[in-house]
């Protein structure tokens, strides 16, 4: 199967064979073509060449419905549940054909009976927006199983789950596959999942199939080599011991509500010292986003104090500048940039109105802004056609670098970062982590929100766990145990609703 987008060859002559009852992993780093492959299989993209053979019959899949009829199902990286509907409605929706009039009593009964045979259950009347990420993922999987799929593909299914939830779900799928009822194709970039659960593995790199093996016959080193090719795997970033500094950023009893007016952050108190990275672990949707928004002045807190260097911090532009507070928000293209402006302008958002960049107090000195952009592009290795290019013409990694350049080039005293490496390839990820550590070594106080436990364990000096809007656990870097942290991320081991 092959597929090109413009000049980019996303998929280059990839062939796979999946046996009934197989648990087959497709491994590759971001941009290796994994998602393109499944989208071609499911009929979301028309492949430029190639086709499927199911039970010896050749098929050209034109749309997802045709794929569904052949028994193919996909659990997407991003949820495709309908947010304002109940779990039951979402289960029924996938049926093809959908009955003209739905007999809800009968449908619910069938769904209940089906759930009894499953290792976990979802309350049928729960509205999807009220479910935690792990529950949504389970519902996605339930939905596919409910529809009697023969081949179930999962695109990075564990990115929103705690380690324990991920293990539970993958283990369950492995058991179902072992019965021979279902073939599972797991798309992932996590070696651990492949080694622990998959029977076979295909490795993609740069759109090509670079290796296939039985998991039992291959070791981690070999997999890593295949996944990343010859390029050296960057080593862990350098950490320097730093002497204890005074508290730089402090949050006291902060309470904030989410878009649905429910309490999202519940009396949160924390303090970050200079030269320290304080990591906040937690499954998405436990109030991290709201807390970052409050710190970024995008959301009004209901109660509580934010202090920087001991003084009350009201989040005005003057204060941000005076105290050196910077932000790496999630999804920077939407949240931290103006996508239709040029790279020059985006790099100048923090300081276009400073004395160096204005004349007579109101006219911008474009030459100075251009010079600043050229210097930052060079220093941070932003790959851009020209400084005048619109920001949204850059790739995700380069947008991230541009934001990093803007936020880290100044005198950083406090840095708030949320999932700074999501969606980036390996090289960009390690570069960003190295820059965060460099800022820490330089004495900045860094509050790092991340859903990736490995990232926190690599970077943070201390780790807090946020659950249902509260800080429920704290551990130092040395005593950090991923299972203990994971247990608190899913507090009390029960799947509770996000409030």
């Amino acid at each position, binding site marked *: 199967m092959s597929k090109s987008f413009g000049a980019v060859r996303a998929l280059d002559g990839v062939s796979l064979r999946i046996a009934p009852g197989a648990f087959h992993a497709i491994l590759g780093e971001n941009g290796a073509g994994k998602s393109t492959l499944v989208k071609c299989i499911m009929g979301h993209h028309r492949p430029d060449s190639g086709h499927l053979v199911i039970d010896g019959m050749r098929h050209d899949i034109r749309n997802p419905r045709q794929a569904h009829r052949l028994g193919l199902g*996909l659990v997407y990286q991003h949820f495709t549940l*309908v*947010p*304002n509907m109940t779990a039951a409605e979402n289960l029924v929706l996938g049926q093809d054909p959908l009955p003209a009039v739905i007999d809800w009593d009968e449908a619910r009964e069938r769904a209940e009976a089906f759930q009894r045979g499953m290792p976990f259950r979802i309350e049928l009347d729960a509205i999807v927006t009220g479910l935690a990420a792990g529950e949504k993922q389970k519902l996605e999987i339930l939905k596919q199983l409910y529809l009697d799929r023969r081949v179930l593909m999962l695109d990075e299914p564990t990115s929103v789950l705690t380690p324990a939830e991920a293990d539970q779900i993958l283990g369950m799928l492995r058991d179902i596959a072992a019965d021979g009822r279902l073939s599972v194709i797991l798309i992932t970039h996590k070696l651990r999942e492949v080694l622990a659960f998959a029977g076979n593995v295909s490795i993609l790199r740069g759109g090509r199939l670079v290796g296939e093996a039985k998991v039992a016959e291959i070791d981690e080193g070999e997999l890593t080599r295949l996944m990343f090719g010859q390029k050296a795997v960057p080593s862990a970033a350098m950490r320097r011991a730093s002497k204890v500094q005074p508290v730089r950023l402090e949050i006291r009893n902060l309470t904030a509500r989410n878009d*649905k007016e429910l309490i999202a952050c519940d009396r949160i108190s924390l303090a970050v010292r200079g030269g320290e990275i304080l990591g906040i672990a937690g499954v998405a949707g436990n109030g991290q986003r709201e807390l970052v928004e409050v710190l970024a002045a995008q959301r009004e807190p209901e109660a509580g104090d934010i202090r920087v260097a001991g003084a009350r911090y009201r989040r005005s532009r003057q204060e941000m500048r005076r105290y050196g507070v910077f932000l790496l928000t999630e999804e920077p293209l939407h949240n931290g940039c103006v996508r239709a402006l040029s790279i020059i302008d985006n790099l100048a958002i923090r300081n276009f109105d400073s004395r160096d960049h204005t004349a007579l107090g109101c006219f911008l000195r474009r030459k100075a802004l251009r010079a600043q952009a050229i210097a930052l592009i060079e220093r941070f290795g932003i790959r851009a056609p020209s400084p005048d290019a619109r920001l949204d013409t850059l790739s995700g990694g380069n947008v991230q670098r541009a934001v990093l350049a803007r936020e880290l080039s100044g005198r950083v005293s406090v840095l708030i970062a949320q999932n700074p490496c999501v969606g980036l390839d390996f090289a960009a990820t390690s570069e960003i982590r190295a820059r965060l550590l460099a800022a820490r070594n330089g004495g900045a106080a860094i509050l790092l929100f991340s859903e990736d436990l490995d990232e926190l364990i690599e970077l943070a000096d201390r780790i807090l766990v946020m659950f249902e809007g509260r800080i429920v656990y704290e551990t130092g870097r040395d005593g950090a145990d991923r299972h203990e942290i994971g247990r608190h991320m899913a507090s009390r081991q029960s799947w509770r609703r996000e409030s």
Partner: protein
Amino acid sequence: MTAASELGAWGVLIAVIGGALRVSTPYLFVSLGETLTEKSGRVNLGLEGTLMMGAMSGYGVSLASGSAWFGVFVAGLVGAAFGLLHAALCSLPRVNDIAVGIALFIFGTGLAIYLGKPLIEPVAPSLPAIPLGFWSDVPALRSALEINALLILGIALAPLLHWGLANTRWGLILRTVGDSADAARALGFSVNGVRTAATGLGGFLAGIGGAFLSLFYPGTWNEGLSSGQGLMAVTLVIFARWEPINCIYAALLFGGASALGPALQAAGVTGNYYLYGAAPYILTLLLLIRSSSTRHRLRGAPSELTISK
């Protein structure tokens, strides 16, 4: 002295109720239609123009054919055509539904006024009234309870739509498309096709609402006939939280507010007539302020709506 003034405060109340029953019908039809359209994830602000086109064409057809009901039907078809036009324009890449709606609002109003010039003088057969007040001998009550079959149809349509949205294939597909276009695509539904159908159907109902204006109450054709009712009905959908049953209450509330001015005037309160006449507009403003917040999105709003993104 009118009958209402003899009854005093009761008279005003009866007149307001009667007004509510009469005036609310176009609100009800437009808001039910708009609820359907918005449930599919699109806003059609052009319904004011659709209302005018419906009123004009319904009146014209009634005049030409002699059958008011045939006029209502044709008004619905004209409304559906306007809805489909909106949908067709919105399905083009990078076209914004709000902008298209405003353009169609102005276009529809202008076209109706232009084509309707010869219709101002002649008198077309109007829709019959059902005298629900036959049991009473208070003339004010009798006239208040003279209602039209379209109101009953509208009130029956609301629970039908409510049921249909929850319990039928089409209802489920419509809500899916309106709530998550991604999910709809993943399930293999045609997002644009569903929205086109929903906008067309919304236009059909709005057209019928227009025919009510020219064929029952006020029952004539003139240029200021709709006076913003189509736009207010869009507000009403927000107030009704995208729920057809609530549309009935909201429409009655707006209808009552619209009837306040004339009712007070009939009761002899002639001062501040224009102020009372502005009641529905003030109500619209208050509702908009009440239902908006800097902190949360509108509850119940379909997630795909441009206004809730």
